[in-house]
């Protein structure tokens, strides 16, 4: 007894530590994505998100001098600042890519032909030229500077309110809900009946049928895309919501039936037999006893199915279409990224926009998830 009691705290510590490690493993990238979603594309490609949180000194890409020209004492002068947003401190600067750190702040550099440039520590500059600079290519300034953290909400406003070419995210949001809600409810309805029959009604070939359905779990849905769409066209429903509901139902049913059947088989036989003795029909048993008892399993499958249909892109593209008015959220976000993709700032911001609804669903139903999973599949 002593040895077991002595081991316990160590075991608990190990469990706690590994839980913390796992949580960190999941949370850190998400946090990085969140930070990135508030940075501009150039910032994201220029430095890591962990550097965005504190003041960093780095060699900045060249900035071209620009501003209104004024004539003073026979010379043409342009005054201005390299960093209109302020807060940046220049520690060295230069005008040649070969020597980007040639000058200290406050120094005056001779650019040839009488042109001179002074850059101050705060980024303020004075360009003096004996001739008008209007037709001249103004110099670039390379700076080594420390920049305070800088964030923007522009990515979110781009994702939410600046629709490209008639695609609006509001419409896409509604489309996704129109797809996801029926595509979650229909398979649950069908699967609950089927699961009851497979669990508690005696008929020949029942075991084979269960094996067949479990076998269907391994069929990749990509295999069915073309034949199923052909079938939809043949029976005349074509591309549309009805089609995608049916497709999602079909693709979701094997898992739904398998989960629910396993859960229902585990319900106490006594209750059901008592009800039968009392003269209850199968339908009454199903509605009055099985359904209320199976609620955790139903809820956990609902979460699965909802998340899957919410995040789905492929099935929506194939069965709903790609037009602006049929586009689901995922399709809309992919299109926002442009013909060649790679807009990380859009990607990170849109990830957080699209994650909102699944998070609500998950947190409101998660207490069923663990219970349902354990009770259903770990038999």
């Amino acid at each position, binding site marked *: 007894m002593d040895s077991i009691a002595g081991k316990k705290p160590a075991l608990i510590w190990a469990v706690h530590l590994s839980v913390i490690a796992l949580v960190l493993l999941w949370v850190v990238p998400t946090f990085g994505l969140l930070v990135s979603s508030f940075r501009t594309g150039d910032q994201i490609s220029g430095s890591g998100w962990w550097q965005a949180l504190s003041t960093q000194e780095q060699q900045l890409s060249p900035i071209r001098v620009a501003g209104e020209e004024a004539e003073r004492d026979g010379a043409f002068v342009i005054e201005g600042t390299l960093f209109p947003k302020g807060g940046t401190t220049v520690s060295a600067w230069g005008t040649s890519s070969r020597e980007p750190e040639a000058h200290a702040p406050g120094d005056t550099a001779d650019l040839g032909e009488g042109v001179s440039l002074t850059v101050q520590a705060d980024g303020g500059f004075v360009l003096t030229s004996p001739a008008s600079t209007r037709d001249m290519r103004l110099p670039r300034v390379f700076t080594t500077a420390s920049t305070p953290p800088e964030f923007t909400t522009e990515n979110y406003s781009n994702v939410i309110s600046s629709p490209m070419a008639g695609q609006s995210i509001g419409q896409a949001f509604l489309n996704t809900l129109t797809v996801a809600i029926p595509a979650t409810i229909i398979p649950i309805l069908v699967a609950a009946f089927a699961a009851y029959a497979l669990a508690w009604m005696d008929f020949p070939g029942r075991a084979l049928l269960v094996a067949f359905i479990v076998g269907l779990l391994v069929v990749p849905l990509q295999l069915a895309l073309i034949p199923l769409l052909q079938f939809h066209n043949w029976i005349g429903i074509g591309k549309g919501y009805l089609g995608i509901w049916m497709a999602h139902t079909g693709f979701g049913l094997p898992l739904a039936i398998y989960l629910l059947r396993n859960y229902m088989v585990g319900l106490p036989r006594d209750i059901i037999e008592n009800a039968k003795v009392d003269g209850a029909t199968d339908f009454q048993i199903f509605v009055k006893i099985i359904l209320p008892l199976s609620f955790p399993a139903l809820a956990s499958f609902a979460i699965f199915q909802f998340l899957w249909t919410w995040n789905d892109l492929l099935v929506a593209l194939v069965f709903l279409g790609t037009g602006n008015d049929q586009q689901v959220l995922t399709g809309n976000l*992919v299109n926002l990224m442009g013909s060649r*993709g790679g807009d990380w700032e859009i990607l990170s911001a849109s990830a957080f926009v699209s994650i909102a609804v699944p998070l609500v669903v998950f947190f409101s139903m998660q207490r069923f998830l663990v219970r349902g999973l354990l009770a259903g599949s770990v038999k």
Partner: protein
Amino acid sequence: MRMKLAVSAAVLALAAGGAFAQELKFPVGEGAFNWDSFKAFDEAHNLDGQTLTIFGPWRGEDQVLAESVLAYFAAATGVTVNYSSSENYEQQIVIDTEAGSPPDVAILPQPGLIADLVRKGFVTPLGEETQAWLAENYAAGDSWVGLGSYAGADGTKALYAFPYKIDVKSLVWYVPENFEDAGYEVPETLEDLKALTEQIVADGGTPWCIGLGSGGATGWPATDWVEDMMLRTQPPEAYDQWTTNELAFNSPEVVGAIEEFGWFAKNDAFVAGGSAAVASTDFRDSPKGLFASPPQCYMHHQASFIPSFFPEGTVVGQDADFFYMPAYAGKDLGKPVLGAGTLAFITKDTEASRAFIEFLKTPIAHEVWMAQTGFLTPMKTVNADLYGDPTLKKMGEILLNSTTFRFDGSDLMPGAVGAGTFWTGMVDYVGGKSAQEVADAIQASWPK
């Protein structure tokens, strides 16, 4: 330009309110556009109440540009146009045609894929008249006809796809001021380019930024390099035979071209980050090294679309520029240019889709896009002064000065090679395998 685009996109979207934009970008009758062609087309076509679905590769900003052109088609014919695109348009079009619910017109950048669809009988031939029109009105017309002609289900070859919008690929991007700071000249021959590469290394710099990363398509930028080298070391006939596998992939000619690419990419001193970074750098991030301080590299080989991945505010022509990827002076192969482009084809034969192909023959369908950005056309009757920026004009000149124009070879090859083993083979090659090994493997994967 960017800002203006974004604003006009927002205005367009507001005006359209979710439906297709009817606002015309340039008012009819104003400017140096070929409005006569538009009016003649307008009078000849009245298809009020019909709809046309177009499936294309353009998304985001490109989609805004494409729809600005389609608005003129809609205004002239009265057809309601629904343009759509999707990320996996190559798979999407196959699924849609196979299942029997294709769009009316599809526009794709892969002739190899279109050839597959034609062979399965999903595409309507465009007819002899269009073929004659292309041959006459496109610069190097016969090569464009060849590009759009495939063998149909019954084996007879005919014109099925109409080339519209092309990209030039044989470009090297650089920052003119970085060249000036170091005293480098734009090379005129491939020998000079190699000498410049060595010179930059001798001066302590890194000449090239090369990035092959592109998600599932990782490796494709290297295929452009190899194709460019193929055109610079072999006659165009050998290039054509290569794309059809008459010239085996592991023949010495092709292996030589791969090794020419390797001269640049497999030398740690020549590439930013060393050759190990080539395969892992994303092609969209790769050009950013040109603008770093100090510069991570001096040159970047990429097609005409790449400025959209330059840092915000970069002015092409001032902050960055390009030169023609030169040819060997020592080999008498002229000035070959590698390009890519999109081809429109009819997947559902309706009056509206026929009218759309007719619309692509009007100069206005080209001019509206070229007056904005990112559009090149080989059509001879357009007003070249309309090019939206000097950069496009310069690219147009490269195109017109070329002695040989060849389409991106990997798009012409069967998908299993051109969008498969060629890509992965190039990743293996920069990863350390020999050119012969890689070429043997690609040859073995060629569908029999």
